[in-house]
């Protein structure tokens, strides 16, 4: 998967782009770097994205990628967790991170003045390259995580999300969520091995934006990646199975609302239909206060506060999701309205007017996607991790504009097959189906 991503990136020379002057290079150890010089605020944002997401969690040890990531800041080199937190805090630096299905990340926001920068970067370097995974801290963090998971497992929205992942992906890693048992099963040696195998420069993307020079950026990128472990080839991840017949699942819960999720596995990053689906979904359920689902479910009938649809492109086909919550006694009614709205959209597509409005919003609002360092940092990470071309942002508006009615209809036909949709209802466990 990553080999392909790297290959695609290699096809695009490091041009300075018109919208955002992104500078791109590789560190000596092979990490890909994406940098934007932004001098107006004396600060620096760094994000290290790693091919070390939850999709590599072994069966029965779901949660390993997340726990490995969370433990990086809990001790490194000779520093214990207090000493590390102290070093960041004393210079006003903020660090963060996490692990999704595809990507693990470590982020830092720091002042760009020399002493602050040095302290923050050297601490980040320790975290990435010499984490100590202290056993006592791990034991405590596992206890806390288990309690958090138990709490989450009692919440209807969370129960629905887990059942949804399971229905769409089954045994594929995208369908396997951590549980109290899988977190309890994590041993220190699992974390050490996961870090050693996956936190490696050749599978890392360093994104940076801030008030530092290109030379400083190059030095920082070298320091952060030079001593990362050698790593190993990523474990094989199975293909996402094509679903022909979706599932319907009702789960009883004492909540006052039913939480409803409808969807199926849809597209991976780089799918040729991605822009057609983005534009089409804006009309269906992506466009804030103006979508069809919003209009039918909320505006016309007052059936929900929140109703939406979206595609989550991933390394492998990520889900298309429709979601809403409604008072439990009207679950059947709401479900019917959503299905009718979707069916009608799939049969007839958007109107010309809706298509034009969708494009107007997406293109007209493009500047809002990159109007802060934080937002640009996220795009740099995304471009690097998913191997998107350097001019991805430059071409974004034109690719939205070029979407035709036919493309939208065909793309939805290909990716949102009604028979393959699964429906999860948590709340009213006896709500009628079709």
């Amino acid at each position, binding site marked *: 998967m990553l080999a392909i991503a790297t290959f695609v990136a290699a096809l695009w020379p490091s041009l300075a782009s018109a919208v955002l002057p992104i500078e791109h290079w590789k560190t000596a150890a092979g990490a890909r770097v994406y940098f934007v010089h932004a001098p*107006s*605020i*004396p*600060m620096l944002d760094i994000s290290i994205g790693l091919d070390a997401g939850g999709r590599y969690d072994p069966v029965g040890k779901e949660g390993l990628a997340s726990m490995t990531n969370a433990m990086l800041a809990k001790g490194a080199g000779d520093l214990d967790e*207090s000493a590390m*937190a*102290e070093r960041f*805090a*004393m210079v006003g630096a*903020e660090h963060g991170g996490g692990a999704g299905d595809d990507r693990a990340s470590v982020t830092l926001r720091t*002042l760009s*003045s*020399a*002493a*602050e*920068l*040095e302290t923050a970067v*050297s601490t980040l370097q320790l975290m990435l390259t010499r984490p100590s995974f202290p056993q006592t801290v791990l034991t405590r963090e596992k*206890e*806390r995580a288990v*309690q958090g998971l*138990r*709490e989450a497992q*009692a919440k209807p929205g969370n*129960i629905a999300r887990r059942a949804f992942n399971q229905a769409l992906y089954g045994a594929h890693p995208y369908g396997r969520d951590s549980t109290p048992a899988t977190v309890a099963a994590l041993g220190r040696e699992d974390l050490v091995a996961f870090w050693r195998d996956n936190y490696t420069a050749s599978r890392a993307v360093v994104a940076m934006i801030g008030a530092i020079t290109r030379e400083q950026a190059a030095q920082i990128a070298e320091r952060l990646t030079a001593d990362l472990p050698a790593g190993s080839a990523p474990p094989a991840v199975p293909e996402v199975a094509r679903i022909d*017949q979706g*599932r*319907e*699942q*009702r*789960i009883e*819960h*004492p*909540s006052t*609302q039913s939480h409803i999720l409808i969807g199926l596995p849809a597209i991976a990053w780089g799918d040729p239909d991605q822009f057609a689906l983005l534009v089409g979904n804006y009309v269906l359920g992506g*466009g*804030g*206060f*103006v979508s069809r689902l919003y209009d039918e479910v909320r505006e*016309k009938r*007052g*059936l*929900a*506060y929140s109703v939406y649809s979206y595609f989550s492109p991933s390394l492998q086909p990520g889900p298309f999701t429709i979601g809403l*919550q409604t*008072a439990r006694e009207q679950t059947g009614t709401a479900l019917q309205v959503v*299905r009718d709205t979707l069916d009608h959209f799939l049969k007839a597509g958007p109107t010309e007017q809706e298509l034009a*409005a969708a494009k*107007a919003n*997406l293109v*007209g*609002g493009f*500047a809002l996607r990159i*109007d*802060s*360092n*934080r937002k640009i940092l996220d795009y740099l990470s995304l471009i690097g991790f998913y191997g998107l071309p350097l001019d991805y942002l430059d071409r974004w508006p034109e690719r939205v504009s070029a979407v035709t009615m036919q493309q939208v209809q065909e793309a939805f036909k290909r990716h949102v097959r*009604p*028979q393959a949709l699964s429906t999860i209802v948590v709340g009213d466990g006896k709500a009628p*189906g079709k």
Partner: protein
Amino acid sequence: MHPFRIPGSFALMLATLVFASAVSAQTSERLLANGMKVIVIEDHRAPTVAHMAWYRAGSIDEVNGKTGVAHVLEHLMFKGTKTVGPGEFSRQVAAMGGRENAFTSRDYTGYYQQLHKSHLAKVMELESDRMANLELTAEEFSREIKVVMEERRLRTEDQANALVYEQLMAAAFIASPVRSPVVGWMNDLQSMRVEDTREWYRNWYAPNNALLVVAGDVDPKQVFDLADKTYGRVPSRALPARKPQIEPAQRGVRRLRIKAPAENPSVLMGFRVPKLEAVDGSDDAYALELLSAVLDLDENGRLTRSVVRGSRVANRAGAGYDMVARGPVLFLLSGTPAQGKSTEDVEAALRGEITRIARDGVGDDELRRVKAQYVASRVYKRDSVFGQAMEAAGLEISGFSHTDADAILERIRKINVRQIQDVAGRYFDEDSLTVVTLDPQPLPKDANAGKATLRTRH
């Protein structure tokens, strides 16, 4: 680059302090003839703008039996005016590529749009139109009130932590309207009529009760001119009298135990403490702010260090205090017991940390650490045009000036360890405390999590 040295770092931190206040964003303000204040924050990094209209009308201005009306009116503001049809406001903002939403709090109701700067004039026209010309029909109301009830179910009824907070506020305050939830009590929503929203709109949606903040790539003079031509046309009106509704003194600890579906027990405590009354007034609010920071600003905060990592009494512990508000405020402490510990243990441990500070004080290094973060966060805030607009509006709506942010930071910087010890000793006696404990109710056994049924569609 130099190796890490504490003394060097501290010297630089002081240098940064001076720098940080020197580079605060360029702001301008003007009072329109009708009494509406306009604030412009210039940020020319990107060709975008955040446009916000705030009304000094939140749930704190509501009366019994009509709780939630401020928030219901917020929803209805999207339902059209004499010239703009229902939903048309949002369609027009969307057509401009804009993002928009609105929010209601105890203190205010705010509306915002973020969009390309070329559309500022149009959005000012739209927003000023609904300040004066809103159409409130029984039909739109009847549908939207259902949406608001769904919102209450989603965010409060089915959220144990939200129920705990709702109960804390209702118990800690008896006379002050801060006691009622912003979304309103469910029965008040059920009995609300469109007339209630009309009355609210008539009472509070006047330019002399409103604030406009425009932040982004704009020229202040142009914004003031546009404001004159749009908002400036709306006549000012006499506002209803706001009764002080001063909360009577608390006469002893208040304890509640509430049951809700949840997995883990938890405890939430609120102490009645002063808020910030004047920037150049008492040090107490600033000292309380820093006390809360020493307890819980970062991973080395006292609560996490002692109660979560040290004694392992809690799995989560937190402190909270917001000194800028229109009404009375609480200093919050919260926690979830670790395995084998009880909410009583957590309460004792959290209060023990305050007692320890009252007795032994805090370290110079602790205070230096949190001050460094305040200073850095002033720099980081400049990355968000929207955040800058929110901060300015929040200060103004509570009776301060948006220009006070730097002065407030200066006051915070001057607080010393003894002042923190002093407020820890003076404000945390049991008689000013309200405690709410969550008694979790397990899910019924018949929750059939494993059972899936295959059905065909079509």
